[in-house]
């Protein structure tokens, strides 16, 4: 359950389109360096190029696990920040297809909520680098939404 203070921070973040303070509450978000901003046609998540995220030093390329973590986190944030459920989603399962090498560059992601049920949500995530038309990975996640129980 998102508490009142967090809800207020969420409101301020939406007003200013500045989500850094909110993301800073999640240590893993800080570790990989995920960012988030609203654009006219939806939310874009960004993972700025960071040496610490490299998995293949030869190319160099971002670790596949970091790309997956970035996309999983983007999906969860999309739910937390923009569905107004006031609940923290719990991941059930996650599936990712790697389409191209994730080079040592800025990486972006967008999420699509295909189905928001009472208990389970299905989110598709697409990640790209230079060209949104050439994604480096697509992923799908199911989240459990804790049902609100009256006392």
């Amino acid at each position, binding site marked *: 359950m998102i508490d009142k203070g967090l809800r207020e921070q969420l409101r301020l973040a939406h007003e200013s389109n500045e989500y850094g303070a909110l993301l800073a509450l*999640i240590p893993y978000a800080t570790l990989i360096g995920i960012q988030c901003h609203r654009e006219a046609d939806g939310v874009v998540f960004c993972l700025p190029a960071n040496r610490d995220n490299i998995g293949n030093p030869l190319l160099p390329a971002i670790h596949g696990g970091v790309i997956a973590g970035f996309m999983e986190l983007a999906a969860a944030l999309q739910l937390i920040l923009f569905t107004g459920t006031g609940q923290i989603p719990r991941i059930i399962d996650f599936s990712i297809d*790697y389409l191209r090498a994730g080079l040592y560059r800025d990486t972006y992601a967008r999420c699509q909520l295909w189905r928001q049920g009472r208990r389970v949500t299905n989110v598709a995530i697409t990640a790209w680098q230079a060209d949104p038309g050439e994604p480096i990975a697509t992923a799908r996640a199911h989240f459990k939404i804790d049902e609100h129980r009256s006392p």
Partner: protein
Amino acid sequence: MPDTALLQQARRFISALPHCQIIGLSVTAIDDQGVTLVLPYSPLLVGDPRSGVVHGGAVTTLMDSACGIATLCVLPQFEVCPTLDLRIDYLHSAQPHKAVFGYAQCYRVTRDVIFTRGFAYQDSVEQPIVQVVGTFMRLGKAINGHPAAMQGGQP
């Protein structure tokens, strides 16, 4: 675990991957059947600050690395094997303040791809917290390490 050539090769491999070093991954055991890695608990990996549980992304990195290193167990010579896909089932929540172990093995090797599977656990292999399957591309030793050869789906 005896200090075998395979163990040395696996440790050299993981020590060359910067992000694996950042999150503190290491190889605890490897033989021709499979490999076990360990992810030490760190507050830096927490995904839910209320519970202190590590984020799924850190566990995914553990399992992607474990499945990737498991290819060393079945290939006669080192080949670069990028991940084609990965599927993770979160069976139970991880417990905070405890390391996560990741075991992976290859269950089918073909000319082009390697099918891997594994699981993550904390207290006991009998109580997995995560189950994973992953498919890896074989790029062959001839083009081993050549950057142009590692551009996944590009022509």
